[in-house]
């Protein structure tokens, strides 16, 4: 093998570093209009009046798109996974977060489009907003989400909690020498791609639409656009594949559908490029996670059980949050084997920007919580942090929280390798440890029932 494993230069590297790569913003089309969005100025408010008459009548304005122009206003991005949609493409009678789009204007210039947005008349009836997920369960909390209430309630049809149960958590707590609890709260983070959300939509002479897209997922976005527009996939051609940074923030299809609607309505090509402020203040970002961990441990450093509560702040609408929480639940033991588990996870809605995917989705905050907690437990036990981690490290045929046997876990090897790279002396026993299936001292009674039959990656 010569090509695989070789340090070959990037296929597209020269274009990227010399500024010659064509990104969506570089697309120029004759007769192209420019779009701007009217966005909610409130965190939570009823829209009591929306009048676009004056804006539509302005010179240079070619289309004003509102909820009334969308063939299918609510389409769930996870509808294929059985999770209902809850987010309107454009707000109709209620805004749930500051920055939520209400209308898109296509005009000869961006300045005209922005002036027209300012000329759209909106009357709001402002309502109390909720930002702290810990208060979402209260009976007197404002109701955030029309479809699900204040937390998602349709896991596998009718559960309002994502659960993991394994072994006997009560027995583990009873048997523990030490019970260590901690609370970990990770924040919302913006993906900060250099290329903001941008789209050029072109109505073609044959009636098709060409959409120059910055999406991370062309076929997924094709499906989203075609669902909202109620078109077969043959009527839309997505052009893209070269993205100026995404980090998860360009899976939402944030600009394609509305730009396409503006192109359809005006009959002209339309470009919509978000400003940096819009990217920072209105695009979907990494969601906050509130995590409480209680570990039952023995004085010689075995983790017997873990009880965990996770509350994921979805923001105002669901988007991919249920997926993120489920993934989170599957990995809540981290790189360790813990035989007795009791996990409850909730997707809670707040009046913040709907959160979405970002690098490490569902797990980045979780890894943070698990590893600070592991360090605390080791310190409480007076145990070396390597020894504590290596002892509990997952091994071949240990089973995951979902009862899938690990096929090739490398926790032991990466720790040994890191120790070597940082000059940490591991004792003989730790240096000799391998990933191989547990036996002898590494197979205490409480882990016997934990061993699976293999074949699970």
């Amino acid at each position: 093998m010569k090509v695989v494993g070789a340090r070959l230069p990037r296929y597209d590297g020269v274009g990227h570093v010399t500024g010659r790569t064509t990104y969506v913003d570089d697309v120029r089309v004759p007769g192209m209009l420019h779009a701007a969005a009217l966005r909610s100025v409130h965190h939570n408010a009823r829209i009591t009046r929306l009048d676009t008459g004056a804006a539509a009548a302005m010179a240079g304005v070619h289309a004003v798109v509102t909820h009334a122009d969308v063939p299918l206003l609510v389409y769930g991005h996870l509808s294929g996974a059985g999770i209902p949609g809850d987010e309107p493409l454009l707000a109709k009678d209620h805004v749930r977060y500051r920055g939520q789009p209400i209308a898109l204007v296509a005009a000869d210039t961006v300045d005209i489009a922005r002036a027209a947005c300012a000329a759209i008349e909106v009357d709001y009836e402002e309502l109390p907003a909720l930002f702290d997920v810990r208060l979402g369960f209260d009976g007197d909390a404002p109701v955030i989400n029309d479809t699900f209430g204040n937390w998602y309630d349709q896991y596998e049809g009718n559960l309002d909690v994502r659960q993991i149960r394994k072994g006997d958590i009560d027995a583990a707590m009873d048997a523990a020498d030490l019970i260590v609890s901690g609370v970990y709260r990770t924040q919302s983070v913006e993906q900060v791609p250099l290329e903001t959300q941008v789209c050029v939509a072109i109505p073609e002479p044959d009636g098709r639409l060409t959409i120059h897209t910055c999406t991370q997922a062309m076929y997924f976005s094709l499906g989203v656009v075609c669902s909202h527009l109620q078109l077969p996939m043959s009527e839309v051609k997505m052009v893209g594949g070269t993205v100026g940074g995404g980090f998860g923030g360009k899976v939402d299809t944030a600009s394609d559908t509305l730009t396409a609607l503006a192109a359809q309505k005006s009959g002209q090509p339309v470009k919509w490029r978000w400003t940096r402020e819009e990217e920072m203040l209105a695009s979907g970002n990494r969601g906050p996670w509130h995590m409480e961990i209680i570990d039952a441990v023995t004085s010689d450093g075995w983790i017997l059980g873990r009880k965990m509560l996770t509350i994921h702040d979805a923001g105002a609408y669901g988007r991919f949050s249920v997926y993120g929480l489920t993934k989170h639940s599957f990995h809540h033991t981290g790189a360790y084997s813990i035989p007795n588990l009791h996990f409850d996870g909730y997707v809670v809605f707040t009046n913040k920007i709907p959160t979405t995917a970002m690098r490490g989705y569902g797990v980045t905050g979780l890894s943070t919580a698990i590893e600070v907690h592991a360090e605390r437990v080791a310190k409480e036990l007076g145990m070396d942090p390597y020894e504590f981690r290596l002892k509990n490290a997952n091994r071949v045929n240990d089973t995951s929280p979902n009862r899938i046997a690990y096929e090739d876990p490398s926790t032991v090897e990466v720790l040994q390798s890191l120790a070597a790279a940082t000059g940490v002396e591991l004792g003989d026993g730790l240096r000799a440890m391998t990933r191989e299936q547990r036996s002898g001292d590494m197979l205490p009674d409480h882990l016997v029932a934990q061993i699976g039959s293999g074949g699970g990656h």
Partner: protein
Amino acid sequence: MAVHRGKGLATVEYPTGMNQNGDPSQAWIKVKPDGRVDVFSGTADIGNGSKTVQSQIVAETIGVPYDWVTYDNSNTDSSPMCTGTFASRATFVAGNAVLKAARQVRERILAVASRELEIDPADLEVADGAVSVKGTPAKSMGVDEVAGAATFVHGELLTGDGAHLNPGAAIIDPTTGEVDKPPHAAISYAACTAEVEVDDETGDVRVLSLTQAYDIGRAMNPTLVEGQIDGGAVMGLGFGLLEDCYPYYPTAEHRGDGMNTYHVPTMAELPEIKNVLMENPSSGGPYGAKGIGEMSNNAQPAAIANAIHDAVGVWVTEFPITPERVLAALDAKREGRSEPRREGRVVAFDEELSINSFTSAKTWGA
């Protein structure tokens, strides 16, 4: 008032492919009359290098030079379906699709060459753009000649198509979370040590170094892997210390609206980064690859938090770990408020942050 040094450790694991799988990718390949290879894939390159890696897989699998491969992911009319570039799936899942398509192309090249050379295809091999007889390398013909013969002598088009789908895993018991099959394509592992300096007067934390060991299955292109790992390390540093969309949470005011008011790491914060790449080939990935893109920002925040504890003896568990939070924690320690509640076997940290301190609507505890 002084600057204190500390070290902290973290270990992480991360799945390749969408959680619960069920995320297909497809690709097809055609060969030009001069043997040059055109790959059509729907995988967006978001800077992760999937154009490069998928082209490498095709060149390796067919047996032609890398620069013979042209890669087109430009539109949905010509490229087949790919679920997308997320979930660390582009190398593993989409890479398997182009691998399968390339294998078909290779078989068709061998079939045409077999007729041209009058030798059984099983006795032929393809490498470096030439088909040769195993054990008799002198007897050979170029892939360009094979493609020319296919086009102008045999009236054939050399193509291949491939699709990869790890079948969807269902939760068969929503009360326990039990699944019916593996919910991931593979799992990658990493460990990280952070070395920090903490100023106990300003609360400022400086990361001096990050040392990281990654098992990524197979490094398809070590330069790109290191790029992912270095970039992820810096992103993890931003998550650990700097970035917050709602800095005054639980209010939603005073949000950073640009690069000057929302601080991502710059060269000024860049620590020394040292990486160890380990190759533990996966059973199902192309050439043993696993995903690396996402997990690379997961270990640093905890390693940094643990290093801060090592340096100044305080735990900060609300992120990012801003100077304000460090100073507040140091104040609490000085005033004797930082110890966990210890009662019998129970050691309870952070009770003031727990949902129990905010509501009685959700009961929670051991």
